[in-house]
């Protein structure tokens, strides 16, 4: 017998700051064995989870594998999800672990995420320019997406992953520290460094008068 196909149509995108009210009910149904409910959760979050694994691994094949393994692990361990956090936060932590394993495997010389890293004493921004019109108005969405991916990909993983969890996935400082095995001060110092470095690199595209 052929395996049943899950719904291959593209799902409606859900912005990161929106939590649909039906999430607890869907998770409850999925835990009770409702495959359709789990499928709905996958379709809801697959784009965000793929962006997460892509931003961490910077490798499409690894990102695909990490995403797939994350959803499969989430399904296998649904019974362990106690509902103390959002389902999405729980899923992000699983996906981060899968993506980090891929990253470490591919880059043996990578700085360990739980090691001290030089967050730089010299963080004083040198380029201080007005960005002019809103970047969202100056660039088409796909073009802006390409710029954001390129710029975040240039960050050292130790900084990139903290920024991803804190500012894109909206985990708290404490949740980020726990997910990455870091102290809260380490998360804060890396986050500052990441934000300033991204600001610096985006300045090239967004400063007033930059060629679009």
């Amino acid at each position, binding site marked *: 017998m052929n*395996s*049943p*196909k*899950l*719904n*291959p149509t*593209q799902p409606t*995108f859900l*912005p*990161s*700051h929106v939590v649909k009210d039906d999430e607890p009910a869907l998770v409850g149904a999925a835990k009770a*064995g409702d*495959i359709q409910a*789990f*499928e709905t959760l*996958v379709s809801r979050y*697959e*784009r*965000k989870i*793929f*962006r997460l694994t892509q931003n961490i691994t910077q490798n*499409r094949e690894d990102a*695909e594998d990490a*995403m*797939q393994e994350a*959803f*499969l692990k989430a*399904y296998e361990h649904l019974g362990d999800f106690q509902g103390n956090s959002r389902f999405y936060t729980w899923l992000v932590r699983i996906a981060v672990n899968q993506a980090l394993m891929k990253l470490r495997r591919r880059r043996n010389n990578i700085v360990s995420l739980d090691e001290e890293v030089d967050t730089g004493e010299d*963080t*004083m*921004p040198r380029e*201080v*320019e*007005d*960005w002019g019109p809103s*970047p*969202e108005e100056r660039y088409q*969405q*796909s073009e*802006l*997406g390409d710029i*954001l991916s390129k710029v*975040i990909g240039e960050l050292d993983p130790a900084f990139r992953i903290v*920024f991803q969890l804190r*500012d*894109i996935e*909206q985990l708290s*400082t404490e949740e980020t520290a726990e997910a990455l095995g870091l102290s809260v001060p380490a998360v*804060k110092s890396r*986050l*500052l460094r990441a*934000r*300033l470095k*991204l*600001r610096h690199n*985006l*300045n090239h595209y*967004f400063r007033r008068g930059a060629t679009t």
Partner: protein
Amino acid sequence: MKCKDIVKELADYLDEDLDSSLRASIEEHLGKCKDCRLVVDTTKQTIQIYCNSEPAPLPAETRVKLHDALAKRLHHQV
């Protein structure tokens, strides 16, 4: 308060995780220092642009691979 102190406190300032007196000192400095104001504004924009950005649709073959793998596993457990 000096410009380097603003940078040191920038993350907590943006996350609104500072006590009111330190916050007031920062805002007093920002009122007088255009460079620091630009750094704060553009850093805030950096966070907002990433936070608000929509993830691109999954490449078609990536989505098929994902859903095939899930279907296989879910079907197995039914």
